[in-house]
């Protein structure tokens, strides 16, 4: 194979370029899509931009694969390409890939698709990757803004629907607010240390720990800066007190975009979070991990309790993703080699199970044009046996039942936390999992077990589509006569997405060995920046 890093060795600028090659390819393709959009015929539903987007992702994967053995620093140390990036890039690209697969079908049925949609998806994916690769506070801020602006537009993409617009507006206002916090935090840290580069901040703190006469107020500055930075990032990770935008935006956004927000953005946020907070781990003025500890417990408990009360499936998944963020945070708190690799593994597992669940939601949304109200899922398991089984599988994975990736992820993270001595944290997290199982199972109950008292018994499925789905409004069954199932075949792109998610959820649950090795190897590069 062509070894790019060898060829460009010694040429500084080219090396810098090489360090952002996977991102750059995506940006090139994003522009290509915009160009190609000029030649689109409106009837064709922007097919070429769809394929271009897929090819872009494929090329990015290719570059990732070619460079995967190297550690390249670029742009005066503000961007790095290392093993840690390789793992998270893979997860983010997969999330983008699955999102694109889902998008085609989703927008086909709503006929609002423009080429710029795919270009925006590629832009935001590249921004997520840049965010993970950033080693500099300015770079982190720029990437977060880049990523967020793409996400704001994507959230409001269903222009006709007020819910979508409202979601975008809420997301935008709160998101900007959080970015301000982030920037403010960066300013404080700069004031305390005189550096913006994470590497230099790390060295600075490491040296200051041994100096007796270090000005106390600088410590305070650093602590304030870190907390503000945490607030900014916690917003993107949707941790508890900063989660308020999540349910509304997830609910109002087009479902593929919801998937991108729930998986890609969260991964990127966790990635940069790990980068920042592993580089300040020598800073022990106050026990920073106590704050995270409380945040984790509040996040998962709140997420689970709120999810329990939801009747709308997308909102339910939104709250459950808040809870999931709490579990993932446990891995970060556990820290160390074991904890961080557990976090990475969980993030990868999380991509597949969440994307799978969203793909099935889209499938049901499109086939039935029913709403995402849980009530309308009644008996669906019988109507679409395979889709129902797959959905149940993803839900069980989210609940953390064995044989699925969700269990392995939780197991990895929890055992890391016990290893670091966080017994109570794990105990509460386990109680939370037991509690969370209830609302996941509630959906499965709806799909498979129909109460005898209800009029719709499994023997006459065909009536189910025709029966008015309660309170669904706009998207309620427009052509809900009978036999909807047979007439509309499941679109192949969606099917591929579901199958990929299904296979990986199963493999990560039963034979996680290669993925765990991958995660463990990628962690080693973190402490050798």
């Amino acid at each position, binding site marked *: 194979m062509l070894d790019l890093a060898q060829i460009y060795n010694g040429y500084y600028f080219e090396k810098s370029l090489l360090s952002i090659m996977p991102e750059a390819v995506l940006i090139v393709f994003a522009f290509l899509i915009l160009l190609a959009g000029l030649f689109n015929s409106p009837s064709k539903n922007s097919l070429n931009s769809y394929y271009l987007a897929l090819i872009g992702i494929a090329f990015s994967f290719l570059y990732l694969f070619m460079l995967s053995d190297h550690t390249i620093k670029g742009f005066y140390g503000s961007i790095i390409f290392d093993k840690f990036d390789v793992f998270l890039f893979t997860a983010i690209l997969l999330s983008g890939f699955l999102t694109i697969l889902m998008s085609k079908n989703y927008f086909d049925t709503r006929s609002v698709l423009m080429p710029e949609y795919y270009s925006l998806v590629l832009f935001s994916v590249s921004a997520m990757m840049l965010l993970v690769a950033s080693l500099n506070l300015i770079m982190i801020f720029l990437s977060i803004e880049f990523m967020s602006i793409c996400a704001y537009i994507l959230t409001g993409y269903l222009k006709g629907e007020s819910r979508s617009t409202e979601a975008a507006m809420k997301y935008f206002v709160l998101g900007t607010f959080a970015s301000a916090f982030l920037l403010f935090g960066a300013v404080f840290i700069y004031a305390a240390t005189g550096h913006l580069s994470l590497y230099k901040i790390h060295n600075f703190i490491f040296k200051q720990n041994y100096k007796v006469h270090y000005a106390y107020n600088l410590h305070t500055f650093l602590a304030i800066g870190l907390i503000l930075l945490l607030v900014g990032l916690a917003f993107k990770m949707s941790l508890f007190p900063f989660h308020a935008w999540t349910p509304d935006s997830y609910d109002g956004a087009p479902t593929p975009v919801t998937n991108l927000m729930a998986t890609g953005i969260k991964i990127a946020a966790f990635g940069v979070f790990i980068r920042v907070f592993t580089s300040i781990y020598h800073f022990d003025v106050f026990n920073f991990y106590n704050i995270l500890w409380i945040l984790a417990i509040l996040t998962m408990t709140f997420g689970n309790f709120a999810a329990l009360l939801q009747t709308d499936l997308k909102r339910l998944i939104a709250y459950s993703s808040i809870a999931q963020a709490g579990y993932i945070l446990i891995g970060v708190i556990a820290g160390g080699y074991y904890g961080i*690799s557990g976090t990475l593994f969980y993030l990868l597992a999380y991509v597949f199970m969440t994307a799978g669940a969203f793909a099935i939601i889209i499938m049901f949304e499109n086939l039935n044009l029913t709403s995402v109200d849980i009530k309308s899922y009644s008996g669906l398991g*019988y109507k679409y*046996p395979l889709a129902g089984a797959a959905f149940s599988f993803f839900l*069980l994975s989210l609940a953390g*039942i*064995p*044989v699925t990736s969700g*269990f392995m992820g939780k*197991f*990895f993270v*929890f*055992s890391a936390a*016990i*290893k670091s001595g966080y*017994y109570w944290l*794990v*105990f509460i997290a*386990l*109680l939370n*999992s*037991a509690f969370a*199982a*209830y609302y996941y*199972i*509630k959906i499965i*109950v709806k799909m*498979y*077990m129909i*109460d005898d008292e209800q009029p719709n018994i*499994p*023997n006459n499925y065909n009536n189910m589509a025709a029966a008015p789905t309660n309170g669904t409004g706009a998207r309620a069954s427009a052509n809900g006569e009978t036999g909807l199932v047979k007439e509309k075949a499941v679109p192949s792109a969606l099917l591929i997405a579901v199958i990929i998610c299904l296979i990986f959820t199963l493999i990560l649950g039963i*034979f*996680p*060995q290669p993925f*765990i*090795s991958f995660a*463990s190897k990628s962690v080693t590069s973190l402490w050798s920046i």
Partner: protein
Amino acid sequence: MSIFLKYILSIIIFFPLLSAFILVFVNKKAEGLLRNLATILSFAEFVISLFLFIYFKSNTYEFQFIERFSWIREFGASYFLGIDGVSLFMILLTTLMTFVSLLSSYKYIKDHVKEFVILMLVLETFMLGTFASLDVLLFYLFWEFMLIPMYFIIGMWGSGRRIYSAVKFILYTLAGSLIMLFGLITIFILHYEQTGDFTFNLLKLYNTNIPLTLQIVLFIAIFLGFAVKVPVFPFHTWLPDAHTEAPTAGSVILAGVLLKFGVYGFFRFAIPLMPEAALILTPIILVLAVISIIYGALVSIVQKDLKRLVAFSSVSHMGFIMLGLFAMTAVSVDGSVLQMINHGISTGALFLFVGMLYERRHTRLIADFGGLAKKAPILAALFMIAVLSSVGLPGLNGFVGEFLILVGSFKQYTIFTIFATSGIIFAAVYLLWMFQRVMFQDITNQKNEDFKDMTFREIMTVLPLILLMFFIGLYPDVFLSRINPTVVHFVNIIEHNKYAYNLIKAKMGLFNA
């Protein structure tokens, strides 16, 4: 043949899964074919599992038919299988009960036959895996996933409040399992800190040195997981609901196999991993066991619903098994293990008979029956044998197990045993009284006039169980000789730890009175 024997455990575990996979490709409409195929395949599975029995070396406590492959290196988890005298019979019980319950459900299960037989076979795989795995992570994987097929079986084919029961079943057992997971991970990490070796190998984890206070905490955590499954008295509330609403096949599997997992877990995991904590907490657990025996029996007496009666009798019988296990003498543990088999057979048979009554009359209330013996003499006779076996009549299996338990525990825990013995008397009361009201007296309900006797298939369903009742009752040595070496080894471990335990007792002044 040698390769077959080398991988026999894997073959046994995954053959039902393979069968289920084959059935996926059978047309949904061909219900007869699905039923026959599933029954034949599960019978084939039972025949394969008999090879274990034939080639099992009965003179050693060592694990046999060991298979070991690396699975997840980072956690030190491996695909590690092996059986001893106890798991041997649990596996045989599982394959037999699955076959019997598939055979029993020809008439009961009318909708979604395909899903039903597939779920039953998947369930079998996970039950067998749980009994055969010697790796803690592997065990947990099988253990927890097992809930899912059972949950669907109760929720989709159950009666009445099936959804409530199914959700209750899964939430109770899931909560218990997760707390247990906490305990297991802690032991795993502790072992790593002591030896620097990441391993889930159960045999290595046995050597973990757990400080006493932590041991008690962990024992309670793991106790919760297993006690919910048994179920021991305050954790039993899911059982009557799940048993009552489940379809016959589900009840048979629940009573026959699933309840055994709790006791098996104590035997394999909780007690050997934390022997000192087990010894310290024994009095409390024995109190709970005796309460289970008496409470279960008393509640059974007043039940109006046949299935609920049998379900509560399970609570009572499982109390005996817990008593035998925690008395921790060789004789009582022998009896306890044998009683696990007996309970599976007897209670499984009782559920089958209740199912037959329900299929004919679509009611389970005792008051709706009466005088059936005249109309269905074969049913009455065979039912009588199952009832007597459950009561513990000498010559049938129940007697041997209960006798061993009571004899074994008497010397150590006299008062507990005396209280427990009353459970046998109560058992005679509720079971025989129930039998009298259902089978004898005059026919009061007109609907019972055309009550049909057992069909050939139904006789074949219960016949293996009836034969086993006599066989174990008359010649238990076939079973006991294979169980005994394992049990003696188990008791030796405890005795070995008693020395340390006595030291602690002297120090802490515990139970001196």
